[in-house]
Structures are given as structure tokens and as C-alpha cells.
């Protein structure tokens, strides 16, 4: 059985021309545990937020390591671990075109509308 794996790095997930750096040919690096992105909910009611990444053999180990690496001072009440290769990111080179449709729609913001001062609570 043979299979080919690309190595993906945090922040380097692109599929297009900026594809993941492939250094898997370099001997021992092939056996490196995969990389996981760690997200922490700092308290109930807040979103999980990306805090960094780490290596682990599987999801259970990723969560345990995340506890030790990222929550030594009660920084979290919940941990998500996602293998980095499953994260898809937009391409910064295309940011201009990607966000362009939102650029000229100032009327989406409440401050666009000029109302008389007498109008309260709006």
C-alpha cells in the first residue's frame, strides 16, 4: 500500500498555486505526528477562538496536549482540535476581488441614514 501525503502548515492550507509546502520527502519528517489547530472557548457564552497549533498522534492526544499547552492558567472551558489539513482558507492574493462586493454598500450601515434629531430610540 502506498499513499502520498502533503504536509500542511497552519496558515498554509491553499489548494491553488500557493499549495501546501510539501516537505514529506525528507526522511524522518514523514513520521512526524500531524499538526492540529486548537480553538479554545474561554468561558461559557463565548465563541471558540483560534489559539495556535500543536502536533499529536490523534484527536484525543491533541486535546490533552492542548490542555497542557494552552490552558495552564484556566484560559478555557472547552477545546476544539481540528487537523490542520482539513482547514480551507481564502487566498490573501484574491482578497481585493473577494471582498469587493461589500466595499460600495455603505447603505448597509445604520450611520448611512440621516434622521432628524427629534427621532429618539432608533
Amino acid at each position, binding site marked *: 500500500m502506498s499513499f502520498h501525503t502533503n504536509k500542511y502548515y497552519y*496558515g498554509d492550507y491553499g489548494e491553488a498555486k500557493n499549495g501546501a509546502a510539501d516537505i514529506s520527502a*525528507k526522511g524522518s519528517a514523514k*513520521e512526524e505526528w500531524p499538526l492540529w489547530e486548537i480553538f479554545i472557548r474561554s468561558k461559557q457564552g463565548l465563541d471558540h477562538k483560534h489559539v*495556535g497549533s500543536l502536533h499529536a498522534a490523534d484527536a484525543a492526544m491533541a486535546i490533552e496536549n492542548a490542555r497542557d499547552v494552552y490552558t495552564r492558567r484556566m484560559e478555557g472551558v472547552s477545546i476544539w482540535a481540528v487537523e490542520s489539513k482539513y482547514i480551507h482558507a481564502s487566498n*490573501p492574493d484574491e482578497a481585493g476581488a473577494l471582498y469587493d462586493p461589500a466595499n460600495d454598500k455603505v447603505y448597509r450601515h445604520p450611520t448611512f441614514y440621516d434622521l432628524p434629531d427629534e427621532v429618539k430610540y432608533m
Partner: protein
Amino acid sequence: MEKTSEAFFQDKIDREIRIEPKDWMPEKYRQTLIRQISQHAHSEIIGMLPEGNWITRAPSLRRKAILLAKVQDEAGHGLYLYSAAETLGISRDEMYEQLHSGRAKYSSIFNYPTLSWADIGVIGWLVDGAAIMNQVPLCRSSFGPYARAMVRVCKEESFHQRQGFEILLTLSRGTEAQRSMAQDAINRWWWPSIMMFGPKDDESPNSVQSMKWKIKRFSNDELRQKFIDVTAEQVKVLGFTLPDPNLKWNKARGHYDYGAINWDEFWQVIQGNGPCNKERLEARKKAWEEGEWVRAAASAYTTKKNKRNTTVAA
């Protein structure tokens, strides 16, 4: 074409817009960051060794628990930084390989031995103090993942320095033997600590470009001076002295003057001839080699589990 990208990049830097891993960056910027961040990570990991030496011999349970937590923090700092370096396209294993083969450098300070308990106090106060002085400006470094890692490091580092100072404060109020043990530790660590800021500005080959790219924000000499000014005052609280006969307040400059640094010693230690270089690297290599079967076993277990899951699903 290249020039345009470069100009666009520099413009972002000048406008204080952070650079993220997928953004275009000059190859030299990437290489400089990989070197600096990985050296920094190696320093955190090697830095666990001199202090780890005293965990079993800490004088009380309180001190032992604190030292354990501190050394665990250093491991964490190393891991944050390795992750930040990995975003630049170098693998963890490659960085380890560079460290183990001696190609990568780490902070010269960790090649000095920890001879007495007072050394643990001095490491916290002076070594971590110098590290904080270096690290606080790095929280605004132009490379996003590095800056974010440094924010976390700096938040945690403050406890390290304070616990060190507290150890020395306790010793300063102790017996004559305890006081002289503390003074001896200060005498041994002072010069290596101020060498931690790196070569003098006119001999620091990487600084100018790093400042332009806002990887660094202050020069080695500026940070060293700041550290000396602060520390020369703090030592008075302890009632000890710093081993520099030329240390004097210079009213005109608004800074302390200090004696000549033995740069020959600095370069010797960097080049591998410090008192503990060999011992430190061997400890890291041994840990890596003897952990090999654990890493392999965990990978094998995952492969087996995945295979079983696939079979069940099919």
C-alpha cells in the same frame, strides 16, 4: 515584478499591518524569521535543563511546585514558538534536527551551570528579566504568528521573574551563608545575563534589516541599557551588589555607565565552548532518541485505529 511585491510588502510593514503566513514575503524575511523564532524556541526548551536540575532539590514543597510550574511554562513557550515557525514552512523535525546537529543556535546563557539554589533565584530575576526586556517589543513584531505567540509568552513570563526575585529576597534576609550564596550567584550570572541581548549594535549583522522589517523594534544596546538601568536599582532592594566596578549613574546621559563586556567569552559560548554546551545538547538528543519508540507507537496505534474504523464503516 519582484520589486513591486517588495515595495508593497514594505509599505504594509510601514503602515503597521501585520504579515500573515500566506502573504507574500521576501525570502530573506522568511529565513530571518525562521532563524530567529526557532532559536528562540530552542532557547526555551534548552532553558528547562539548568532549572530542571534543581526541581528535586528545591528547599520546600512550595518552591518545588513553583519551579515545576515555571519549567512547564518554558516547555509551553517552546511549543508556541515552534508552531509559529512552522507557519513559515519549516517542519518541527527539521528544527529539532538543526538543534541536535548543532547547526541552530540557542541563547548562550543556558550553557552556564546552576551550582546552587540561589542560581534559581538569579535565573528568574536576571535571565528572565533580560528575556522579558527582549520579548515585550516582540509582541509588536511584524509577523502575526510570532507576535501572537509572544503576547502569550510575556503574560506568563512575569511570574517567572517575580518568583526569582522573591527567592533572592528570602535569601537576603537569611543567614550569612545564604547571603553569600546569593551574592556568589549574582556575580556568576550578571555578565552572561547582559550578554543575552546579543552583540553590540555595530557588530550585530542581522539587526539593521530586522529593524527595517519591524521584526525587532529596539537595538541590542538600547535594550541592554534599559535592563542595566532597571536592575541596578532593583539590586539595592536586595542589599546585594552587581559585580561591575564601573557601574555608575551618569547624570548627563540619564543612564548607568557600565564596564566592558567580555565579548570573547560570548562568542566562545555561542560557538559551542561554554561550560555546559555539550551536556545540554546531549540531554536533548538523548530525550529525542529515547522517545523515538513512544512516537512510533502512538503513530502505529492511530494507524491501527483508523484502519479498524474504515473496516467497520465498509
